[in-house]
């Protein structure tokens, strides 16, 4: 079972007005999907993820984890991509 932790409420108060907080990608439950809001990572990783298709507005689904619990497998733009949780944490999604 995938535990759902660290789930932040949408539009958290601490965020400045107009910026939607969403949830972190690694907190999605199995089979749960959403739309990418933005990526918070150091510039090189951020650009790399974006080039791979992790751009705002893209639908993404958490397909399954792997036997040791990390990385997770996500469905994005017609393919399956394995991402470590540390990388999934950089991606915010709207459910």
């Amino acid at each position, binding site marked *: 079972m995938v535990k759902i932790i660290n789930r932040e409420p949408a539009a958290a108060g601490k965020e400045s007005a107009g910026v939607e907080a969403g949830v972190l990608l690694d907190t999605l439950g199995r089979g749960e999907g959403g739309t990418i809001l933005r990526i918070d990572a150091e510039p090189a*990783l951020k650009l790399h993820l974006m080039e*791979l298709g992790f751009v705002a507005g893209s639908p993404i689904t958490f397909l399954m984890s792997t036997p040791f619990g990390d*990385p997770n497998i996500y469905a994005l*733009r*017609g393919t*399956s991509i394995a991402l*470590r949780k*540390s990388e999934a944490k950089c991606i915010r999604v709207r459910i």
Partner: protein
Amino acid sequence: MHPRPDLNPPARKEAVAGSASTEANRVTTDPAVNAALAAAPGGSAGSGSEPLVALVGSANSGKTTLFNLLTGSHYNTVNYPGATVEFAIGPGKNFAGFPCRVMDTPGLTSLIPSSLDEKVTVDALFAKHRPDVVVAVVDANQLSRHLYLVKQLQDLGFNLVVALTMSDLLRKQGRGIDAGKLSEMLECPVLPLDPRKKDKVAELGRLVEERWMAGRSLSGRRMCDEGDYQVFADGMTEDRVLSYYAALDEVEKLVTVENGGDQKTRGRGAAADRILLHPVYGLAIFLAAMFLIFTSIFWMATPFMDLIDAGFGWAIAAVKHVLPQSWIVDLIADGAVGGVGTVMVFLPQILILFFAMGYLEDSGYLARGAALVDKPLSKIGLNGKSFVPLLSGYACAIPAMMAARTIPNRYERNLTIFIIPLMSCSARLPVYTLLLAFITPHGKPWIGGLALTGLYLAGMVLGAAVSTVISRFSRNKGISGFILELPALRKPVLRVVVASTYHKAEQYLRKAGLTIVCISLGLWVLTHTPPVPAAAPATAMLSSGGAAVPATAQAAADGTSEYVTVSNSYAAQIGRFIEPVTRPMGLDWRGGVAMICGFAAREVFVSAMALMYRIDDTEGDGLADRLLARMSEVTFEGTQEKVFTISSVLGVILFFMIALQCFSTVAVAKTEAGGWKFAAVQLAVYTGAAYVLTVILVQGLRAMGVA
């Protein structure tokens, strides 16, 4: 404009690792790349009157399958010494109506490379011999992601044809791509095809020819150069990526035709993955696959190795029989033919392992295996992407180190390269087989088999230990990550698997083969010079101790004796000189010389043992049996003390497990890890540790009363 700290363009994960890595990933019009392309087979001289067609695309787009189809699997991997550059180039004979060369490139998702193998592709695209036409292979299921690269290529002015693959998978989901509309929107030809079938080859050839002619007629058209690439790379900001994807999402929406399929089938192969990546079944399947691969080495490779060994033994005897007796014939027979035999003996294990891995790779399973072991490997400082290189290390360290290029993080790549020599490569198998046969009781071969499995596992455990220790004490590791696309699961194409197995074995033959044959020739000369005059043996042997006298008597009876020559040779002089070093390991000078010979390639140890302990070509039992019998009786010269005992043989096994006894590997480590310092440290650490540990083991066992 977003500031990009790392221009040039670096492998991104390494941006923090320092300027050295940035430099390593700079895309240049490297002279070596140009030379390699100019020298490519199937190519013409000079400026390349035969057009060059490059296949570019994501690793899982069916690109390599298409390449095999177009070249009829007749291609060569071109490697240029001193540069980390490797291309597969073949004549496009099955393909276009005009003579051309076709080049396959490592998978690419963007023209901004994020690993060394991606950099190789970008290098190839911007080399002096710029491809005349680029065939971009695009998976219809992930149109926007794959068209991203197409857009980049177009922006840089490449002459493109798009090959649209995997439409059948899309059709199963009740969808399709309107190729005509896509072609219109992209302003370049788009051809849907299945790279496993030949039906569209002629049409693709025609499109490529059209583009090539069109490109030529615009001779005034300025091709982009390195400067343009820099401007392009510097301008690759987040905004730019967003605008690309915004445009591509629009394209995808307009060209996708819905035929009313089942929405639920749209998680590609998800059902199979739920089993393959299941916490219990997934792990069981993974372990079973690994177990099958490794046991196949034992029960499949060993008979073939014996066959090759016997075949070359026969060939050596035949050469000596047919040609008149002279030293030059001996040199050819023992040095050259024997050397080639040494090289060939490894092939079964290499071929079996690479075939199995190629099969798993083409089926899409290997990527899942890498994802599965990412977490355990990250605990010891490695990466899931280290999995394939480490597994290859069980065949041969050379292609294994080259496979490490796919690891984006420089630190993890170098650490992987560092421990690859501990994986039990094919050269160790003949040595282990001989030595285990010596210490295991007769009539119980299963004990030897079990011990052999143990040795293979021990290599893995040792590698993990070394990696753990190093990663505990190192800094500047860079940012570790694991982003890997899992390709669709499908039935492997046998032709592709066979071709890739062949070319990996060829890498070994090309890099290690010549070195081994040369060193084998050199060893023959060292063990056979200076020539001993007919009268000299008796006096020479008397001076070296009483135990050798019977041999001398026999030598006198035979008239000539290989042994006499060997024991007075330069090799013997060196061996006696270093005996104080080999003695603590429990070996006499002859064993020491055989050990040094093992540095040509580990397996040479076996034939050197036969030479040093005077196993000649007389008829009788197999060489191994005679060698084993001889090993059980040899003593240190001038004493009754046996050389080969349980402790000394265990010591030799331990030494072979750890020592880096392969000059070809050292040379490749230098190229792949970027420097002599790395290769020298690796050689010194493993060989030094092997020596010290062997001495401790042998002396410790003897102190405990083990013979």
